[in-house]
């Protein structure tokens, strides 16, 4: 139940309090000996993490979890999903309840440094926006002086919102609600004039309205929201693995390695970077502490970055998100993975 989140927080705080002080083995060994990866995901957000008809978790963030599980354990299904709210996600990771968190989480300095977490990269470049009814006659978020604004609590959006209205010298009434579903319901009941969250979330939310065309997403993007997976601070080996799984998915798109052709290409090609990534040249897997064909498994799980994007949130899905900033650097975006060598 949503409302007991703070109770969950308390339990996790207690977990921090009661956890044994025994010397902690590396996360990689822990995951390998358990044979299962514990991955923290959203409680449900269209496109990013949701259950399909069969009741299995799927989505853009879930796909990353599956790629990590495939790289580390050779099996994309060897995952225990832990559903987390905006509030419980960090204590869960800190206390070791999960090994990796892939829950559209914004990379900020204080989270990276003060919370004892390590962001391993960005899997979606987002920004906070507003959605409102067309009937309001508002064309821009700078016209929202005096409006009531629905927000989901426990996110960076609350802070951006306060900053945005303050810098534009406007008044507003915040209506903070714990979950996306209830905040959306309050917006639909006209409890507030506009709803604000990350642009990707707005697209996901708009897609589920009865009459999506009656609503307009304002052009202003009021913040930078680089969303990415993260791990606990202090285990560099595990952070490297999490980082390079993400990089491998991006490089695979760059090099044209797909879910369909990865097995064939793994046999050896005349492209040295593909050979290095898929393990037929060099010993890059060994450097990470993994099998040499780890990237083959990771890519085979759900395909490369473009395949994952298109399958769950791309133009042909209900979310209909364009690649935009999330296109490869050579296609006009800012997605740029370091070289595989």
């Amino acid at each position, binding site marked *: 139940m949503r409302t007991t989140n703070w109770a969950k927080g308390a339990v996790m705080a207690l977990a921090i309090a009661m956890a044994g002080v025994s010397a902690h083995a590396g996360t990689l060994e822990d995951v390998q000996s358990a044979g299962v990866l514990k991955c923290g995901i959203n409680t449900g957000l269209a496109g990013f993490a949701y259950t399909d008809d069969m009741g299995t978790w799927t989505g853009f963030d879930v796909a990353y979890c599956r790629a990590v599980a495939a790289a580390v354990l050779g099996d994309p299904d060897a995952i225990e999903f832990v559903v987390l709210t905006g509030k419980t996600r960090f*204590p869960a990771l800190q206390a070791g309840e999960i090994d990796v968190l892939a829950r559209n989480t914004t990379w900020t300095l204080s989270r990276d440094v003060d919370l004892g977490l390590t962001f391993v990269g960005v899997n979606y470049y987002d920004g906070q926006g507003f959605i409102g009814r067309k009937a309001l006659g508002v064309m821009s978020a700078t016209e929202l002086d005096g409006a009531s604004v629905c927000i989901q609590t426990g996110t960076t959006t609350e802070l951006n919102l306060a900053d945005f209205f303050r810098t534009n010298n406007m008044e507003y009434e915040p209506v903070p609600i714990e979950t996306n579903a209830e905040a959306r319901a309050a917006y639909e009941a006209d409890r507030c004039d506009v709803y604000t969250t990350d642009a990707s979330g707005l697209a996901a939310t708009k897609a589920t309205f009865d009459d999506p065309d009656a609503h307009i997403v304002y052009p202003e993007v009021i913040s930078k929201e680089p969303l990415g997976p993260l791990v606990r601070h202090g285990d560099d080996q595990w952070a490297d693995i999490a980082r390079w799984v993400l990089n491998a998915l991006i490089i695979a798109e760059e090099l044209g390695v797909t879910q369909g052709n990865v097995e064939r290409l793994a046999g050896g090609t005349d492209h040295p970077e593909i050979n290095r990534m898929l393990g037929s040249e060099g010993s890059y897997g060994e450097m990470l502490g993994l099998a040499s064909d780890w990237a083959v498994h990771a890519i085979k799980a759900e395909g490369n970055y473009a395949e994952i994007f298109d399958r769950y949130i791309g133009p042909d899905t209900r979310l209909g998100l364009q690649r935009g900033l999330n296109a490869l650097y050579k296609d006009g975006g800012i997605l740029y993975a370091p070289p595989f060598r």
Partner: protein
Amino acid sequence: MGGPSRGVILQLLLVLAVALFFAFVVANTKANLERAGLSAGYGFLWDTSAFDINQRLISYDSTNTYGRAFIVGGLNTVLVASMGVIAATIIGFLAGILRLSPNFLISRIVTVYVEFTRNVPLLLQIIFWWVILLALPRVRDSIQVGAFYLNNRGVRMPAPVFEQGSVVLLIGLVVGVVATILVARWARARQDATGHKFPVGWTGLGLVVGLPLVLFLITGRPIGLDLPEMGRFNLQGGFNITPELVALWLALSTYTGSFISEIVRGGILSVNKGQTEAAGALGLPSGLTLRKVILPQAMRAIVPPLTSQYLNLTKNSSLAVAIGYQDLVSIGDTILNQSGQALEVISIYMVTYLSLSLLTSTFMNWYNGRIALVER
């Protein structure tokens, strides 16, 4: 070994064991926090909060500190808890008395209310009231009564604006209240001595309302009104009560009221029937019998369990987070998330609720001592 010394040693051992356990928890927590590279301590309370709060009893904006945000949240908790305690007491006493009514229809209606509200989870009731309030007209179609507006964003009403000279009115109000108390004492002493009654109620009304009103007119109306006006999105100006506060208040008071009504009913039934009959034989009307004979005796059975209900109501108000009423826990959760200081924030919750509960208990114990049976 002798009996008493063995007991003392056992108790000492127990105290030692408890102390060791807590020492272990504290040391272990510290070690784990250090290992995880997390900072501990309450220094974060002085950091800038950077988020806004829609309901504030004291001034606050996003440039204030986490500590001040906590105080705003704590006051919101105290506000809804005190409103709830007052309403639940009124509802509870009315329902408890009415359920004993000889009128079949009234007692059945009250039975249905009691059984329904106390058997449905409070969280559902909170959300139920909230959804009902959200179904009110939209802000542009507000129901308007004079300068009062009702819509699904709350009730907006004129707010008083205190201008220079309004302090005189405050003094007038205080004088009126004090005078009423003195008159009530005098009237009681006179009734004890002579049996004559004095209209205390009307006199009090005149003093408490009339005196400030006369002063208001004499001093040239130093209190103005800030009237709500329709802005582009919302009504602007005046004073707004949010639907979240109302929903939480209604849910808490009807829920706790049903428990209190059972306590009241039990208290009344615990008074010997002979008391009612004796009062009747003396010719006391039934209303006076209830007020002067039954309830004073029933109160002794009612007050101790009533205290627990007040404590429950206060703690239950933390369910506010479900509908976005910004109480201590709702704001604390945001602070927890922004600052990452889980242990500290939760310790603040605990200390706050503990203090509120102890304050309530202390007051109720004092009251219970006052009304306790005086053996003659």
